[in-house]
């Protein structure tokens, strides 16, 4: 039986909050998704031997992808979100690839898993390809295409100043100003 050429659509969409927390000593970042209430930015608490601070609280969502034709589902619950590279570090792998792909009118987004990133948390290549297919199936690829890179390429999150594609500051009563990196 011929393989299905999957036509992807988002499914099982769950809206909620993406929380970024930072520990200074030793430096560590962690993120998690929550559908319930949300911690307040700047809130500090102790967990074991470490002091954690809530750095960011973003409106975001989790999703899976499903094939419209054969109903085959792919789990993407481990994808925290997508980041747009702002080219803050010229020697970063992501920025190097971004500059190269730009010439081919290929725009990149970086898929992130939740932090802290452990060895086994690399995003499988097949998942990245499926995400790329999903985005490219929704556009006229003769104009431009999307390439999905993995957060594996980022050496040091603490120096990354990329823009996450989610909603920050929606809960703020102050007018939106410059976005600060959650790292």
């Amino acid at each position, binding site marked *: 039986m011929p393989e299905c050429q999957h036509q992807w659509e988002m499914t099982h969409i769950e*809206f909620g909050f993406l929380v970024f927390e930072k520990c200074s000593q030793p430096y560590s970042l962690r993120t998690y998704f929550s*559908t*319930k*209430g*949300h911690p307040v930015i700047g809130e500090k608490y102790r967990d074991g031997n470490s002091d954690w601070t809530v750095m960011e609280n973003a*409106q975001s969502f989790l999703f899976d992808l499903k094939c419209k034709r054969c109903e085959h589902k792919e789990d993407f619950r481990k994808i925290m979100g997508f980041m747009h590279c702002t080219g803050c570090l010229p020697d970063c792998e992501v920025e190097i690839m971004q500059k190269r792909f730009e010439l081919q009118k290929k725009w990149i987004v970086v898929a992130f898993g939740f932090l802290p990133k452990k060895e086994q948390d690399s995003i499988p290549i097949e998942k990245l390809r499926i995400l790329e297919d999903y985005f490219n199936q929704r556009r006229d690829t003769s104009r431009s295409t999307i390439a999905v890179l993995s957060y594996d390429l980022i050496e040091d999150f603490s120096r990354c100043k990329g823009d996450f594609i989610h*909603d920050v500051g*929606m*809960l*703020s*009563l*102050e*007018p*939106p100003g410059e976005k600060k990196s959650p790292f």
Partner: protein
Amino acid sequence: MKIKNIKDILDAEVIVGDDKLDIDVKHIYASDLMSDVLAFGEPNSILLTGLASQQAIISAHMAEFDGVVLIRGKKTKDGSEKFARDKQIVLLSTQLDMYDACVRIGLADNKQIILNSEKLAFPVKNNIILSHEFSVDGNDFTNAGMASTEVKAVLKKIGLDPVLIRRVAISTYESEMNVVMHAKRGTVKLSVTPKFIQVIIEDVGKGIPDIKMAMQEGYTTATEEMRAMGFGSGMGLPNIKKNSDELDLSSEVGKGTCLRLKFFI
């Protein structure tokens, strides 16, 4: 417009504020950015938003809004309901998305949108996008015709075909006159859907004993007095039938009459 109208137009669920639906609101504010709501929102407004969070309710409260409608079927999960209850903010939720919600309210409010009658391409499916109700007092010949005048004005404002409006106006007027002449009191309910206009004229009164007779041209039960005023020529129901696309008349003697009219757009 009343919050109740907004609830009906948006097919919304009431999460908080069942007892406050009669409030009249002046403005609609569509935004997910709460700092804007605070900076530019005006008191006595309804907030349409996709931000399902307590901050949306807090912002609405600080801006002195009367209520919040969450769009896209969103619900809050963070204690917002309690806050809304405490601060007396009405909280509704609709499955519609922002564009459809704004369009429906705008049309119903009929000051916001003037349509080109040739391009009547409604984005919503076969649902009521606009509804109004008017009351009619029996035997009040001074105000007779007010309801149909309003119906005509509403339809004119949304830019429907003038010939269609005329048919609806005439049918509604004749029906309204029947209520004034023969019933104690009644209501005229106007509904506009993408496919048709519906007018339901329902009354409390003596009812029609013989509908077949009543539909005959020239047959009338009008009094001398009424005929002296120029009414009751017996052409009412036949005229309504002529001008409408579908007519359904039901009546119970001693109780009242219900006339349903449909006009296809």
